[in-house]
């Protein structure tokens, strides 16, 4: 690569020596590896990551477990061989749903708390800026909280549906 007179800016440097190729170079690795770190607003409010994520997925996981348990109990009990469960099937199903509901409520409470802590009433545009793209951690927290609110809402709906629906039906009536 020829160094041409046209390039006479102060920031102009030659090409550094590359690993392997024996070309002359003067560029300083430190300057070429320098970067401004990602912008970050210092956190006034920054709860532990685990808490935040419990607020996001707690209800979902609870539903998943209740659902697997209910399906498992149902199959175990209603298979031709009929494994006995000590308690009636519906009791197990209600218990699983109830337990899940408690967890889901705890989870939604968490996300509501975080949402309120990170949410400021402002003009529409302000909300928009907060809603997407506000600097972390506040912006990220509010984002996750909003997600958690919705996830848990749906999780609660579905837990109630199975908790009520399954016991109403005849035990082991083949569909």
């Amino acid at each position, binding site marked *: 690569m020829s160094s041409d007179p046209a390039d006479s800016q102060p920031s102009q440097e030659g090409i550094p020596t590359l690993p392997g190729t024996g070309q002359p170079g003067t560029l300083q690795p430190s300057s070429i590896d320098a970067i401004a770190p990602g912008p970050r607003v210092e956190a006034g409010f920054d709860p532990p990551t685990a808490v935040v994520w419990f607020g996001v997925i707690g209800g979902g996981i609870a539903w998943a477990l209740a659902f697997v348990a209910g399906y498992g109990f149902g199959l*175990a009990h209603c*298979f031709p061989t009929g494994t006995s469960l000590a308690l009636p099937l519906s009791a197990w199903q209600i218990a699983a749903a109830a337990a899940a509901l408690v967890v889901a409520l705890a989870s939604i409470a968490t996300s509501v708390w975080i949402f309120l802590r990170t949410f400021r009433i402002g003009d529409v545009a302000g909300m928009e800026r907060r809603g997407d793209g506000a600097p972390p951690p506040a912006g990220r927290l509010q984002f996750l909280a909003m997600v958690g609110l919705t996830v848990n809402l749906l999780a609660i709906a579905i837990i109630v549906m199975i908790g009520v629906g399954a016991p109403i039906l005849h035990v082991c009536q083949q569909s």
Partner: protein
Amino acid sequence: MSTVPGGPVDRDTPAGAIHLARQRRAKPNGWWGMVLFLCSEVTIFGTMIATYFYLQFGVHHWPPRGISPEKVAYPSIATGVLLLTTFTMWLAARAAGAGARRTVLLMISLSLLIQGAFFGVQVALMSSDLSRFSPRSTAYGSIYYTLTGTHDAHVLVGCLLGLAVLWFVARRGLTDYWSTATRALALYWYVVNTMAVFVLLTTLSPSL
């Protein structure tokens, strides 16, 4: 304008590796890759264990008539011994972070001995089982041998991985890449050991 650690630092020297391990806030890519791979492996074991019970629900006699329930003693002892490697691998991973090459080599070789022994025992147990019942006669046999066989295969692969890491760490020293690899190997064994417990409980469930 701050300098990114790891840029000027040469990550292919032990010194650079230690520096990186110290200043990292996030887990390295290799670590994440192994974690996700293990998610997939755990799902495989979960599916097989679920299969075991699904098949059990469907039949009146489990294990089927003519097949005596598994003996509890030997498999339990073997698994118990295997669990020791959780500790040795943890030590290896920690030493890798600190750049203590000798400790890493020692701990991995120690684990390899135990794991190899475990594999041998498993093979012996399986051959004795095969003399008692065949995977072709009933679904019980099929899932029993597939489940245990899958776990043994994971142990074998783990041993091969261990040998590879041992060799490269010995030859290259604890570069960032191979110290991450050591930590990933440790993760792998944590999961394989955990699965060993679940597989054991599943296969012994008729005898308990």
